[in-house]
């Protein structure tokens, strides 16, 4: 957030990131809409747990966050649950 108060070049980077985020969320929304026409909501919805796993993995890589035992066990449980749902 402090970056936005500095030079205009940094401002451009911030705005481009926000726009990129919104673009990706829009694409994700429409793809979900396409999938909803074919599959049950109770089938598709648990897959959103995947985004939580991806966030923690990317944070471990990009922000050097520690992968605690709690995070790992939770991620494994989510993955197991998603596999079960995809098989149902």
């Amino acid at each position, binding site marked *: *957030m402090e970056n936005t108060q500095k030079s205009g070049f940094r401002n451009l980077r911030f705005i481009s990131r926000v726009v990129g985020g919104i673009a990706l969320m829009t694409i994700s*929304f*429409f*793809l*979900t*809409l*396409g*999938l*909803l*026409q*074919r599959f*049950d*909501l*109770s*089938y598709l*919805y*648990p897959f*959103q*747990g995947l985004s*939580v*796993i991806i*966030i*923690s993995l990317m*944070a471990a890589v990009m*922000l050097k*966050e520690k992968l*605690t035992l*709690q*995070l790992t*066990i*939770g*991620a*494994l*449980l*989510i*993955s*197991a*649950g*998603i*596999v*079960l*749902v*995809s*098989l*149902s």
Partner: protein
Amino acid sequence: MTNQPKRNRPSGFANPWLQLALSVLCVLVSELLLKCGANDIADPSSVWSWTGINGLASPLVWLGIAFVIASFLSWLYVLKYIPLTIAFPLSRVVDILVPLGCWIFLGEFISTRRWCGIALVVIGLALVAKPVARIEERL
């Protein structure tokens, strides 16, 4: 954002806990509406329907989008008063409400295997929600 002193909590409709519950409800309603709308205009045979753009033809989908926006605005308001490390784990209750809503309102058949999978995902998310909220605050 986290350095701001916590303001006095407003009451009534502006109460942040109430807004948190409303945000969760809005997400639930929007998911159900999007599914109903998608069912209405479903065209599984066409290739273009994989992009989901034909969903915009359904008014239910537009109503679902409105509820998504409402839930997001409410969520932004909630985060002014409640730290993310508390609000985010609490908001994960929606992950139980949505499958229940599918079963009750949409009449979807949910096998035992699917219930077990959903339960595992919910437990995993409950474990992971607080650390992830801490990570997101750093972002």
